[in-house]
């Protein structure tokens, strides 16, 4: 059994290999094989060993299970196990528990859990929070309810079957007796918890919390200015630190004016830190740098401006965006280095085609640009144990990185997960965490490391750029019969760089009889990594724009072509479960459903009646188990900039929207995030370093550029899946397709900025 290939890990979509989940010695998370060969992670609730006198948030509380504590006054504290990055999981997961526990939401307090195997996998990535936890969190709540009912039944000497729970009370119908949870909690906590798979879950018609508009549980505290984010952490005797790294990735320190820096006002310490390995920059580990520690962050930052570091000359520092583009153009003129997928005989099919189209698409590197710059607070104690406070999406991976780099046991690393001022995949890497740990170790006191914005732009795991040379052949009917993509992407020594791959099943693979995906690699010394909807955030633009080109070339309605390609509603084979995740099978009926819905809502069929200079564009993308179709209505301003009037999104993520408050917000946010990428965003590499330094040269979307976004959920009879990512990709091609409809200019490279610059290339 290959655990690596089966477990779910945030660095990777579930279709790619990943590291095994850390299993507890206490074995509350157990692994078992499934019939399909997958690894099934199961959450087991231990007996509440900590119930009697266990220190909890509220001193008199009793711990029903590791997720649930109930105080005598009925206030329920629910542990939120996953990091909160703005995707709403600190609210969503406690909602699932509270629903089945049968308590009123107003009596629920959510508390951020520490990193602890008792909670099972803890990460924010892959839009997996919902699909991985939808059932287990409800089971946790139902198990708690069952224990409270059992406790009441024992007090009353009646069968548990005669008792029922509602709104934080257990009732005995035949005698009309009732006891509040607060009075039952201690007794319940002493009971043996039921097997989670044995509990009965509610019927959706009985939901009182799931499906209700529920505001973010910490939102009032954010608006009061409470200390919630990583950057806000204050621990006793804390110092502040900055860490200067080589602007050219992989640069090592030759010398630095350390003595001069140490003499500056407020500076407590300054020293050189050696990176852990030559490839640490690519792997987002600890790299060479100069640490400056001061009593105030501003003092450290001011001192950094006087820092003079001599870095090793970089053999490959000539890497640049321009050189990549030239090399990619050269590679695309010859055949691909390797073949990802080959169906039929593309050359023969092209020779027979009524019409052949060729087009080249490209997109740039992008930065995550979380609004909260990377930061971490760490304290390394004399016994070698480490305590970390970090805004991280991936605390377990961070703890292992710290342990490995400091040469200690992972069990000695304690991680507090703070609220994250944005994630977008950036905080799946924990480079800032290992920096803080190392500086704290060298300093011997608690240290908060904070990057400035330029460092944040210069030390990211970037969304990789990419180049696609497409060729397609159309039958006389206009339908594509041959399709080829020569994808020029990036890698290190023959291995595709992180998040720079083209999945072999990417649409239209499987829907066009003769198809070939080939790949050639450009050597890259710039780190890359997953950014919100890795792969999809780039590939959707290229593929769904080219599909639109095919529709126009073949004289077909872009909607009709997509419906025709996906074909009649049918369920395609379901992959085996992975890491406790029941992966819903791919269903072309769901594709059709959202395409037809978005067409109806946007007035797609009436688009011919739009005024000249205004057009609609359509795109569909399936990712993270979500089916999303979007239509953009756009035109062109006199200065050549796009004018986006409105966007419609139709989304199928299953039968239940757990929290409409968060769900609509996620879709609107993802759509506008993607819109901003398409319009403006660009990271340029020159001489091996990133050019952009701040938001003045990396133009994130702003209020006056944000059009109305109308969201429609199509409820299909499938288990609910995640929403942090799937709504992002379609907007990029839908916008470009709308601009083509409006102006006749085809956008084949991003960002768009002004349409004038695309005429020559068209």
């Amino acid at each position, binding site marked *: 059994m290959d655990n690596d290939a089966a477990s779910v890990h945030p660095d990777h979509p579930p279709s790619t290999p990943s590291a095994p989940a850390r299993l507890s010695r206490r074995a509350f998370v157990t692994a078992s094989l499934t019939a399909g060969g997958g690894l099934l992670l199961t959450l087991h609730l231990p007996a509440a060993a900590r119930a009697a006198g266990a220190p909890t948030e509220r001193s008199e509380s009793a711990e029903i299970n590791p997720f649930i504590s109930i105080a005598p006054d009925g206030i329920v504290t629910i542990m939120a196990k996953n990091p909160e990055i703005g995707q709403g999981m600190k609210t969503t997961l406690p909602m699932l528990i509270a629903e089945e526990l049968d308590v009123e939401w107003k009596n629920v307090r959510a508390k951020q859990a520490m990193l602890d195997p008792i909670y099972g996998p803890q990460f924010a990535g892959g839009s997996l929070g919902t699909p991985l936890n939808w059932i287990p969190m409800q089971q946790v709540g139902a198990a708690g309810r069952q224990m409270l009912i059992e406790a009441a039944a024992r007090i009353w000497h009646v069968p548990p079957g005669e008792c029922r729970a509602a709104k934080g009370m257990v009732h005995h119908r035949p005698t009309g007796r009732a006891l509040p949870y607060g009075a039952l909690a201690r007794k319940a906590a002493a009971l043996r918890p039921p097997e989670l798979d044995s509990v009965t879950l509610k019927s959706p018609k009985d939901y009182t919390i799931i499906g209700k508009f529920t505001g973010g549980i910490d939102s009032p505290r954010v*608006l009061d*200015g409470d200390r919630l984010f990583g950057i806000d952490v204050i621990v006793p005797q804390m110092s502040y630190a900055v860490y200067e790294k080589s602007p050219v990735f992989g640069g090592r320190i030759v010398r630095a004016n350390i003595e001069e820096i140490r003499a500056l006002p407020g500076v407590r310490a300054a020293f050189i830190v050696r990176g852990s390995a030559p490839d640490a920059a690519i792997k987002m580990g600890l790299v060479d740098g100069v640490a400056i520690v001061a009593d105030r962050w501003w003092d450290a930052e001011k001192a950094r401006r006087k820092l003079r570091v001599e870095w090793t000359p970089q053999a490959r520092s000539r890497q640049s965006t321009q050189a990549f583009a030239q090399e990619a153009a050269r590679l695309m003129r010859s055949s691909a280095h390797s073949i990802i997928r080959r169906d039929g005989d593309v050359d023969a099919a092209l020779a027979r085609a009524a019409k052949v189209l060729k087009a080249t698409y490209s997109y740039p590197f992008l930065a995550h640009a979380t609004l909260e710059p990377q930061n971490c607070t760490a304290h390394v104690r004399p016994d070698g144990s480490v305590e970390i406070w970090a805004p991280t999406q991936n605390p377990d991976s961070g703890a292992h990185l710290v342990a490995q780099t400091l040469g200690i046991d992972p069990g000695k690393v304690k991680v507090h997960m703070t609220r994250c001022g944005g994630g977008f995949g950036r905080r799946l890497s924990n480079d800032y965490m290992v920096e803080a740990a190392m500086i704290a170790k060298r300093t011997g006191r608690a240290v908060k490391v904070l990057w400035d914005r330029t460092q944040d732009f210069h030390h990211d795991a970037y969304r990789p750029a990419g180049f696609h040379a497409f060729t397609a052949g159309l039958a006389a009917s206009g339908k594509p019969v041959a399709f080829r993509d020569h994808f020029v992407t990036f890698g290190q020594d023959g291995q595709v760089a992180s998040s720079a791959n083209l999945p072999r099943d990417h649409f239209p693979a499987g829907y066009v009889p003769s198809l070939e995906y080939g790949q050639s690699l450009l050597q890259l010394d710039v780190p890359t990594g997953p950014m919100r909807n890795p792969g999809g955030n780039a590939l959707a633009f290229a593929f769904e724009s080219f599909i639109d080109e095919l529709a126009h070339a073949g004289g077909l309605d872009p909607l009709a072509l997509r419906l025709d390609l996906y074909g009649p509603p049918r369920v395609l084979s379901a992959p085996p479960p992975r890491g406790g995740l029941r992966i819903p099978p791919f269903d072309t009926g769901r594709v059709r459903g959202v395409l037809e819905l978005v067409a109806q809502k946007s007035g797609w069929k009436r688009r011919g009646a739009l005024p000249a200079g205004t057009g609609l564009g359509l795109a569909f993308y399936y990712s993270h188990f979500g089916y999303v179709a979007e239509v953009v209505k756009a035109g062109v301003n006199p200065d050549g900039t796009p004018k986006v009037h409105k966007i419609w999104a139709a989304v199928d993520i299953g039968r239940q929207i757990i929290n409409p408050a968060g769900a609509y917000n996620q879709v609107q946010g993802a759509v506008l995030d993607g819109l901003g990428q398409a319009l403006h965003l660009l990271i340029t590499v020159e001489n091996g370093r990133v050019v952009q330094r701040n*938001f003045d040269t990396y133009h994130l979307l702003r*209020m006056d550029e944000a059009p109305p976004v109308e969201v429609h959920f199509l409820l299909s009879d499938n288990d609910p899946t995640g929403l942090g990512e799937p709504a992002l990709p379609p907007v990029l091609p839908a916008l470009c397709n709308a601009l083509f409809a409006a102006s006749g200019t085809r956008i084949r490279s991003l960002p768009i900025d002004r349409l004038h610059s695309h005429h020559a290339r068209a």
Partner: protein
Amino acid sequence: MRYTIRVNGRRRVVQSDADTPLLWVLRDDLRLTGSKFGCGIAYCGACTVHLDGVPARACVTPISAVGNAAIVTIEGIGRSHWGRRVKSAWLDLDVMQCGYCQAGQVMTATALLARNPRPTDADIDQAMRNNICRCCTYTRIRAAIKRAAGLPTADTREADHG
């Protein structure tokens, strides 16, 4: 240098170099961490505070330039009429995702409503365009400003240009 400043109605004495930005005095010396650091160049608005009721970027405002101005931060804005209404609208509509920019958004929106209690969409665009929300919660920020103003929250811009 020793500076006496007025923050949320209280006099505070701080020891600082003249060029230290107000943001770091607030965050690290006074431990008022509600105002956020985003860019350091007055481009994102996460650090927005009020100086005598006018939105200012604390990240580029040297402590020496503050003088006797009344500083109000997110920690204190709820005590004003518009601050209270804006915060309440923000919660009613569940505006935030990550929430990191929202202190700055609330400060800017409060200042807008204090001088223009019935803002149009164009007014909102103009006032809010220098506050970045990386999560792109602009749809709800717009609606929440209207709600705080007691205006209908529907986005009517699309209807305006067909």
